[in-house]
Every structure is written in C-alpha cells, then in structure tokens.
C-alpha cells in the first residue's frame, strides 16, 4: 500500500494501478461486519436488490411479499456503527403495492427519481420515487420473471421483459407501450440483460436451457444462441444442440466491460461466454449449487485487477475468480437460500438478500495498521475511510470513460 502510494506520489504509476490493487485487496477481505446493518423491513424473503449507479447511495429491495424498500447506504453519522435506514417503503398498506412477489427492481440508470419493478402479479410498474406512486403500469399475460433497462442507452429507453410467455417483450418508456416482441425461446424467459457495452445488444436466458443474444434493431431473429459445446456436434446429443446448460438457465450477468457474459443454470454450473462471438470460454467454476426456480441475481466486481464473480450458492455467497474459475471464498452468513447479491463498485461492498429476510452487508475488513501501534483504532479507521472517499470519489467520472480504454 505504502509502495503504491509513494509510486503514485512520484507519478510513476498509473492512478488505475493503485486503485485496482486496493480494490482487489478490499474485495478479498469482504466480511460480515458487526458495524454495518441493514434495517429489517421485509417480513419475507428478498428476491432482488439494486444499487443506483449515480451516487451509489440508495438501494432498492423487493420482497416476496410484494414490498419494495429504498435504503440509504451512506453513513453520514461519523460513527463506526451504521444501520442502513429505510428511506421509504411501498408497504402492504400502500394501495399501489404489488400483489405478489416482486421479482425484479431496478433504478432508472440516469436518475434516482424513478425506478421500475416487476412482479408475479403480471405487472411491471414504473414508480415515481418522490410520491411512491406508479407512473406507468404494464400488464402482461404471465408472471414477470425479469426486466432490465439498458444502463448505457442513449438512443432508446426500452425495458426488456421476460415473462412466463416465451416471447420477450420490449416496453418503451417514452411511449408507455409495448412496442416489440422477440420470438425464439420455447419456454419461460427467466432472465434478461442489456449489454453494458452496446446499447442494442440484449441477452436472454430461458427455461428451455438456451441463452440467446439479440440485436433489437434486427427484427428477424436473434444474433446467436450460446452453445455449451461450441458447435461440436459429436459431444451434444440431438436435443442438446445450442443449449447453454443442461437445465433451466436462470441467471445472466455481463461483466463490467460487457465483453463477457456469465450464465448459471440448474445443472449447478456457471459458464463464462465471450459475448461478442458466443463462444464458451470453458472456465470451470466447479459446482455452483442452484436450485432456484426463478431468476438468480448475481454480480461481478468492477475495478479489480482479476475480477471476481459473486454468486449465491445455497445459503452462502460464493466468490470466484472470473477468469480462473477458482473459488476464492464462501461468504457464509445467511441462514436460508440467498437469492440476490449486488456489488457496490465504489466501496467494494457486497449486499446480499435471501429467504431468511435479511439483507447482509459484506464490508471489507479494515486493514490492521502495518506501521506502528495505533492506539486509537477508531481514529485510524476514520482516516482510512476518508482516504477511501478521496480515492474513489475522484476518479468516478473517469470510470465511465476509462472502462473503454481499459480494455
């Protein structure tokens, strides 16, 4: 750390280098911290969480009882101990609340004044954060498993929606209507994700064990279907052609740069694909327990030098090296199945929600001072926290533009 700092001072190093090293170290030291709590609002399992990208301050969570909660993650109290307060709640008493389990929540990528939620009550609602009233409600024929707004889209404002129907719906926020349907799957669509690199590229995962990548400008069909055997016909039995998994595919996640796509399936496997070619990179992550019949929300770290995957695995969160497939650690703290996890890229914190009604914050352990004996640990902690602010606040704008040059 000190070496990095001096090198940085001397201007020898790229600023990225120090940042990567430190965030990698922090990710590796993620732990359940008694100082960080998240309010217990949900009385039922938590299906989905989302942290907004603008400030990194507010977190949405959707529960199996239809409740949606907004948390404030930022600690302005100056105390070490912090409980993330619930800022506002769409509770059971609200008349706009989802009737059934909320499956996906997502902030509008450019503004915290709006968020979108979809539920098993066959609706997707676009909420005004201020009034907590839905500005728009989309009705569907089947349960909505997943929806996604493109995080980088400038030219369109489409929400891709995966429902029980095999067709993927595209809803336009501008017009408030369903403008397009993508056909090709044979079973319910469990997960949809926009590419963080190209705004028209969409990946969808379905219970028919297939993962398709679409260009929404192309009407005729998908770009390609991921094949676990990379087109090697000899290995695949006739019905397993062009399948990504041997079971339902219920998790999708692009890496931060959008170059790779991760999928998880109920065959207890996780696969890493080249998102440009659809090639299976054949990284072996071993067995990733996955019994979920619904969408599994997992995430990838951003800004570390080897990147990490955080994937719910039974009652714990497994951390894998993205490209090595090596199991780094298991974050054990939930007492029931974990359904979702979200990485906070600014502070390298991980939030996970599970069926035990808890949202757990996994916070990097403060590095013990390797210099002299520091008697006031709290003081020192404050210092390091401030360093953290200083470090990560500054290059934030830089991050968006830097991601392209990084690769």
């Amino acid at each position: 750390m000190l070496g990095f700092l001096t090198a940085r001072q001397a201007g020898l190093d790229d600023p990225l280098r120090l940042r990567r090293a430190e965030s990698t170290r922090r990710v590796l030291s993620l732990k359940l911290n008694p100082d960080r709590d998240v309010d217990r609002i949900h009385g039922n399992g938590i299906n989905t969480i989302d942290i907004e990208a603008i400030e990194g301050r507010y977190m949405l969570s959707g529960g199996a009882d239809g409740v949606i909660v907004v948390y404030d993650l930022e600690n302005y109290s100056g105390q070490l101990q912090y409980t993330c307060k619930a800022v506002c709640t769409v509770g059971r008493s609200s008349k706009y609340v989802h009737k059934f389990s909320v499956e996906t929540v997502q902030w509008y990528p450019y503004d915290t004044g709006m968020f979108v939620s979809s539920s098993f009550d066959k609706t997707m609602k676009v909420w005004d954060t201020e009034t907590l009233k839905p500005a728009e409600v989309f009705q569907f024929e089947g349960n909505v498993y997943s929806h996604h707004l493109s995080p980088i889209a400038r030219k369109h404002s489409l929400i891709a929606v995966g429902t029980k129907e095999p067709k993927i719906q595209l809803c336009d926020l501008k017009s408030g209507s369903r403008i397009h349907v993508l056909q090709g799957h044979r079973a319910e669509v469990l997960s949809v994700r926009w590419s963080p690199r190209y705004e028209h590229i969409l990946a969808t995962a379905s219970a028919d064990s297939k993962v398709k990548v679409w260009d929404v400008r192309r009407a005729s069909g998908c770009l390609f279907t991921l094949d676990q055997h990379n087109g090697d016909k000899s290995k695949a039995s006739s019905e397993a052609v062009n399948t990504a998994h041997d079971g339902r595919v219920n998790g999708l996640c692009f890496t931060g740069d959008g170059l790779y796509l991760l999928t998880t399936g109920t065959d207890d496997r996780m696969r890493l694909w080249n998102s440009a070619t659809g090639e299976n990179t054949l990284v072996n992550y071993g067995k990733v327990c996955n019994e979920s019949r619904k969408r599994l929300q997992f995430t990838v770290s951003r800004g570390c030098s080897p990147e990490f995957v955080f994937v719910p695995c039974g009652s714990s969160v497994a951390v894998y090296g993205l490209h090595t497939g090596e199991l780094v650690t298991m974050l054990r703290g939930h007492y029931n199945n974990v359904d979702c996890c979200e990485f906070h890229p600014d502070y390298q914190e991980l939030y996970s929600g599970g069926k035990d009604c808890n949202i757990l914050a996994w916070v990097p352990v403060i590095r013990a001072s390797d210099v002299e004996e520091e008697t006031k640990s709290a003081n020192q902690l404050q210092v390091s926290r401030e360093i953290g602010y200083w470090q990560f606040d500054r290059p934030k704008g830089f991050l968006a533009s830097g991601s392209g040059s990084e690769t």
Partner: protein
Amino acid sequence: MELSQRDRLSELVEELTTSGQPQLHQDRMKEVKKICRVSNDCIEHVYHSLMSQLNQEHAEVRLSAFQIATELFSRSHHFRTLLVDNFQELLELTVETDSEQPLPPPKEVARKLRSLAIQTIQSWQASYGSAYKKLALGYHFLKQVKKVDFQDAEARTVAERRREEERQRKMERIYKERVEAASKDMEESCQEIEATLTEMESCMSLLLPGFDRTDMQTTNHSPPSSQAANACPSADEQPCCSRDLKDNRRGGMIQEEEETKERKHEESREGKERKEVEDREGEKEEEEGSSEEEEGGPPGGDVFIRSSGLVSHSYSLDLDLRPGVHVKETEDNEAVVSTVIDLHRLIITKHLPAVQGWVQVFTRSGAEQQLLRRALELKRCLEAALQKHKELHIDYRTRVRRVMKASADGEEDDDDDDEDDDDDFDEVPEKEGYEPHIPEHLRAEYGLDPAPSTSTAPPPATSPAAAPLPSSSSSSSSRRLKRLIEEEQDPTCAAATLRRLRQSLPPPPESSSSSRSGSDQKAAGAPVVPFGLDLYYWGQEQPNAGKIIKSASQHQFWVPIDVDEERENKELQAESRSRYISFPGSFTPVSHHCRAPVGWGKLCQRQDRLKCPFHGPIVPRDQEGRPCRQEDRLREEQEERRRREEQPDWRDAELMRDIEAATGEDLGSDRVGKKGKGKKKKKYPNLSDLKQSANTSRSRLEKKVFNKSAMRRVAEVQGKDDRRKHDKFSNQFNYALN
C-alpha cells in the same frame, strides 16, 4: 499441539459423546477444558471433532456434543468464533432449521436436544449477541423466520404448534362425541340403575329382619394368613403337605381302617360339629386333634385334616373372635339371597363400570357440572349399596355348593352341617368357572402357598363336600362320581388337593393290573394291525389274485393282435399273500462327541451320529482333538490350507480397515471381518440402539422375504417355469404370443 494431546482430545470427545448419558461426565469434561487451555490448536481440534460428532445420525451423540460445545462456548473466544462461523450448520444439526434434515432418532433425546439448543442459543444471544454478528443473525432467523417462540418452554416451532392445536381440536371433538354418547347412555340406563338399587335395598331390608332369629352368629374369624403361618412350623411336622404323607400314615394306621370305614359316614358329620365346638372353645383343640388323628385319616388319608382343618396336634391355633353381622341363608331366604347375588353381580359387572366410565368421560372432557354431579351421585349410590352388601356378609360360595348338594345328595346332608369355616374368607366376586391354573403372583391372593407342590388344603378342606369318599357306600355311586369330579375341579375342595397328591405320587404299582384278567392284559399288549387283503383271504386260495383282466375290445371288426384276456401278475399275487411290516429298530442314543478343536483348547461337544455340521465326518480323536488316524489328519490339514488360500492374508480385516481409513475407499473389510468373527461387536454399547426399534415383526419378515438369495431363488424358479413352457410350447401360437 502435541500429538498426544490431539489423540487424547479425540479420545475424550468420543468417550463423552458416545456415553449415551444425558449429562456429561464431569471429570472428562474437566480434562478437555484443561487441554483446551493449552492452545488454540487444541480448541480447533476439539471444534472439528465436535462438528463431526454433531453430524452423527444419533441424537444422543449430538446432544452430548452440543453440551460440550456449550461448555466451551462460554470459555473460549476462539471456540466462539469458530462455532459462530459455522452457525448455520449448528442450527441445522441441533434446532432442525432445515426441514429436509430432521433430527435423528431416538425421538425423546432429539426433542431434548432441540429445546436445549434453543434455550442455549437464547442465552448466548443475551450474552454474546452484540459481539458476534452471525449469532445475532441466527437468533433473529430463528425468531422471525422459523418463528421459534423462545418463551415457550417447549420450544416449538409454528408447525409444531399448529399440529398441537389440530390435535387438541380433534381431541375436543372426540370428547364431545363421547360426552354426548355417555349422557345419552346415562339417560337410558339411569332408570335401570335406580330400579336395581331399590331392589337391592328392599332385598337387604328383607334379609336383615331375619337377622336376630337364627342367622346371626359370632363366629371365629381366623384369617387364612395366620393359619397358614401356623400350618407350616417345620418340614418334618407337616405331614399333610409332604408327599410321603400317605405312605407314612398308611403303614401305621392300616389296622384302624375297618372301624373307620364303618364310622366314616357319621364321623364326617360329627367331626364337623365337633369342630364347631372346638372352634368356639379354642383351648381343647389339642386333645381333640390328637383323638381325631387316631380315628380319622387313613382311608382317604386326610379325614383328620378334613375334620379339624389341622394337620398335626402340635399346632397352636390363634383364634380371633370378632362379632359381626352375618347373614346366613336358609331355605327361607334363599330366593332373596339369590336375588341379592344377582343384583350384586349386575352392579359390579355392569352398572358400576358404566358409571365409572361416564365419570371418567365427564371429568376428562370438562363437561357440564350437572352431568358430572349426577354421574357421581349414581356412583355413590352404587358404592353404598355394595358396601351395605358387604357388611351383610352373605356367603354365596357356600350357598352355591349348598344348592348343588341339595340337588345331588340332599338326603345325605342336613342344613345343620353347614360349615362356618368358610367365613374365614373374604367375600370375593363369584368366579364363573374354576381356575385350574392360578398364576404364581396371584397365589397369595387366593390364600394358597406359593409353591403348588406343597399347597395345603385350605380350611374348606373340612367342608362337607369332601366327606363322601370312595369308601362310603351309602349313596349311589354314579351321583357320587359326578360330584367327585365336580369337586375335584374346584381348587378349594379337599378332593382337588387329594387329586393333586395322587398325581404327584407315583401310581400304585400292582393294584390295578393285578385286578385285570390275563387275557385282557395280552389284548392290551397286542398291536393293532389294519385289516388287509391278506387277512381277508387268510389260509384260502385266492381265486383271482394277481390277475389283471383286460376287457376284450368291443370293436366290431378291429381287434388287436395279442389280446390276452387275463394276465398274471406275480407281484400282485405275492402282495395279496404277504404283508410288509416295517421294522425301524430301536433308537440308540449317540454316545460320542465330535471332539474337533474349536479354539481356546476346547473340543466340539456336538453329538451327531455320523457327521458334525461344522467339522465334517466324525473320526476318532485324541485328547487334544487331533485325529488319531493319519489319513484324517492329512485331510484336515488340506482343508485348512484350502481355507487359507481362499482368503489370502492380505485380506486381513485389520489391515484392510487401516487401508480403508487411510484411503477412504471401501475394500470390504467389514465383510471379511464378519466372516472371520461371525458376530460383530457393538461399537458403542452405551448409546441406545437405533436399530432396535426397527426390530418389528414386519421388519424381520421383510428381512426374510426380501433376502437377496431368497429373491434370487424365487426368480430362478419362476424363470425356469416360464422357460419350460416356452421351450415346449413355443411353436404353438397361443403360447408363443405370451
């Protein structure tokens, strides 16, 4: 950490957890703590061994392991960290948070473990919850997701509580039904009961006025126990109990037989009268007894006993004179008494149980007070009636006999010779029939000695019923015989005792056979042969024995060439003249032993005639069990060699077990070991055996029926049947198709 410590810790943990005790062994626990104090490594080692023990499918093991964990949890921070780190698993294994992983049997211990774990976790949360986040999380998980009520003493989950509620509701319904049925029942039979009670009341008031006339007596009540105690002072002084009574007596008293015979009839009556006197006076009884002994006894052997109730004149008899109400039935009140008896029986067998049942139902279901009060009132009335009846001291045992007597030989007995001795008995409910077998534990209750061989005739031995013995010739023999049989069946009669004595003695050798004629004897000795053809034509020439007659063909023109109308069959002919009598020979018991060495220097003690099932043909052997003949010795050596070859020494059970432990692969050491030892020793004798409970008749049958070899055999047989059919008839279309 040193290896010795590690080993010692493992050993201690294993001992503690497999003790099967609900509490930990204090000294061992102390030792564990002492070792744990040495270093964190030790704690880690204990933690790992505890977790592995917690994973055992045995609730007792888990309970003990959890108790150890509790002890260490409060002492070591390191242990706390380790345990809390893996708190999910701990909860799964002790609190049953995962419904797919229920706690293992035995159920009682599992329940205990669960409640203990919940209480402990609560106390942990109270003291360490703030410091250990996962502990707090786990506590909240239990509280909010699993809805464990920590205040609930039973520590039940929601599901359990719901189940409990359901059960209660069901019980309530059942109770309600029962209450309804009972109240209806009560309505119906209330009148009947009341009628019975009134009847009983009036019967008793009828009986009681006759109280001061003749029936009241102050009789002796000598409890049977005291008499029994007196009756067996020493072994040589109880001739009536000992088996050789008859023989002893017969020699000495044979000369008196004639006069006794003459006097027999009156004497039996006199004796009883005398005895009554005797009993009242009490003191003179000794001389009386001695005189009695001289006159009584010999013919049946027991006249003295019968007449006095005593067996030796050296007895002292304690008499307890107690006044009391006693209703004695005469012919006048017989009808009333029998009614009372019937009513009594009705109350005891029918009304009282019914009323008690209602009371039980009402109290248990908490029904209306009124119903309960009414039922209790009925019960009280019935009990009062019974009590009153008891106070009357009506003796129906005597009465029953009296009735019988009146029918059988009324002219012989008068009403006077009724016995008072029966008053010694407590009133007992009437037995439906006699009880030839009285269970050992009930013998005291029946006033019998524990051992049947020495059972004395109880006081009613002097009852008039026993008076007429075979020697008495006055009344018709058939009637007497009948009565004798009846009395023999009654265990309280002297006749029964006599019969038993007779049975226990060896049968008198000559008396019966000498009386029979010689021809009779021969006839008895001759075998009975079934009647056959040979006997039918005994001594005659049989006309067509052994000839087979073939009927000529009835065909008009077609006749077989060699029609032999008659054919002689030598065999048949011989058969009709002779008779086979199979002679199996006589059984000679085997006197030799197998004597093959069986280990530990012992020799096989089996006595097979030719071949021991374990050691083969029986050959002469020397002291050490080696065969005497050379060829036998060679053969045995060969066999030994072959056995060893069959199981090469690398298949040594111990070695294989070691290898298995090292590699984790199953080489089948337990199979080999089993073959060698025959019976596997139980590993942890203190733990309750889980398989024991599964040892039901069903499981045993299953083991037999679904036995692999049995299944294979059956399948083979069936397959063979099928194949045969197929082989034979496969070319026929209707078989070929199936």
